[in-house]
């Protein structure tokens, strides 16, 4: 399995300025998209940095994930993550999706229903990648694959200080 980003000349976007927000004191338990974004971004950066030291850019700069790509429906208990593989044929797409799912499962209450998709038009096999990422049986089996499990675990635990 190739675990690099397989894109020698990525389009690099400027880092967005984070708008400081006031905390809502009455809504402590709410799942915050920005919080998910921060966790996943940090996580994915380390995931790809470990495997691909050649790539100096952060995922935010590569626009794999943006704050807008995370929507949370607190009432229905649903989280939708849309990410953008850096190139149309990125074989990392399913691995990234799998890692995102594992990380979310690790961080958020289990009753949240998580849907993970590549952003429309971003991948040559968009439909099949999306189907695979949301088939829980395929996900469970993939996570029992020792190589994938090791990768996911390394990233889950290596940067939790």
């Amino acid at each position, binding site marked *: 399995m190739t675990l690099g980003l397989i894109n020698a000349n990525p389009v690099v976007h400027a880092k967005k300025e984070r708008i400081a927000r006031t905390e809502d004191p009455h809504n402590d338990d709410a799942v915050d998209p920005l919080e998910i974004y921060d966790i996943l971004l940090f996580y994915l950066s380390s995931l790809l940095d470990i495997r691909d030291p050649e790539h100096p850019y952060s995922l935010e700069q590569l626009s794999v994930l943006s704050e807008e790509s995370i929507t949370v429906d607190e009432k229905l208990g649903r989280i939708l993550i849309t990410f953008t593989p850096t190139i149309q044929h990125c074989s990392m797409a399913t691995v990234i999706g799998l890692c995102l799912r594992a990380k979310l499962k690790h961080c958020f209450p*289990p*009753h949240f*229903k998580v849907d993970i998709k590549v952003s429309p038009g971003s991948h040559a096999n968009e439909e099949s990648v999306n*189907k695979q990422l949301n*088939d*829980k*049986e*395929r996900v*469970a*089996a993939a996570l*029992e694959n020792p190589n994938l499990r090791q990768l996911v675990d390394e990233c889950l635990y290596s940067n939790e200080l």
Partner: protein
Amino acid sequence: MEDELKEIETLQGHTDKVWSVAWKPLAATTHPLVLASCSGDKTVRIWEHTPSSSPSSLSWHCKAVLDETHTRTVRSCAWSPSGKMLATASFDATTAIWEDVGGDFECVSTLEGHENEVKSVSWNASGSLLATCSRDKTVWIWEVMPGNEFECVSVLQGHSQDVKMVKWHPTLDVLFSCSYDNTVKVWWAEDGDPDDWHCVQTIGESNNGHSSTVWALSFNAKGDKMVTCSDDLTLKIWESDIEMMESGNGYAPWTHVSTLSGYHDRTIFSVHWSRDDIIASAAADDAIRLFVENKDGKIDGPSYNILLKKDKAHDVDVNSVQWSPGDNRLLASASDDGTIKIWELTTLT
């Protein structure tokens, strides 16, 4: 009159998601009810009902844990018609055959051959054939030989993707498989030739079939109706002229009767048709739904109504539902929350 699905007991013991449950066929009405469950914790548990003397004590207990055989998730399990054998299908690419030797379960055979995860296993009505299916896109038919030998008699290719479930017809030697390729395929051996299994029908989106992964299917007691459930959030009812098949007049194709949509709002993983014609379905929306045929207006063919819905049946996804044998209307459900629940359908008057 109002029907209620009452929670009787929660069975705890598995340490990971429970994927599937299977009731042991009842050899005699005096025998206790036995349930097998299988899990991501790589084990199978056997649960037995003991009528309790005091109301406060648990009436189900775990009689055996079948471990140290499968090295990955045990995805599904199936009792032989006699109830003496249990077959278990695992992501470790094997199917294990367990024999009940006086309450202890001994692994007597391991069926190898699939390239990767085995998803489902099913015995035919007479217990002479076994079918398995896998992510390797194939369906295998095994002949049960003397001395716990299992010989592969056919490797069926036809699905273009992961095969999720195999199920034999309840009375005829006709095999059904459903898949990630959105179809249900029907396999038949012409003239009963045991070496000539081939696909006689493919039910896909173009002939009223599902538009996404078909996860499971189940038959009514007579075997002339079938229900399928899917990631497309619908259940579909099918029927066939099985008398024609029983009388040896060739294959009778299955035709679409009804589509039940708008009930579950996430993937429907499991469906089971009871002997008294109640269809139970379980889904990733944490709910269980029960459906019955609407006997009133049959002008446009049979239609099906919801009997009841049980929201929050489990804390998380419900992966499997199975009606019990015997006289009580008991339903077992298995969930990602690691538990199995026993429900009783009661009619309040």
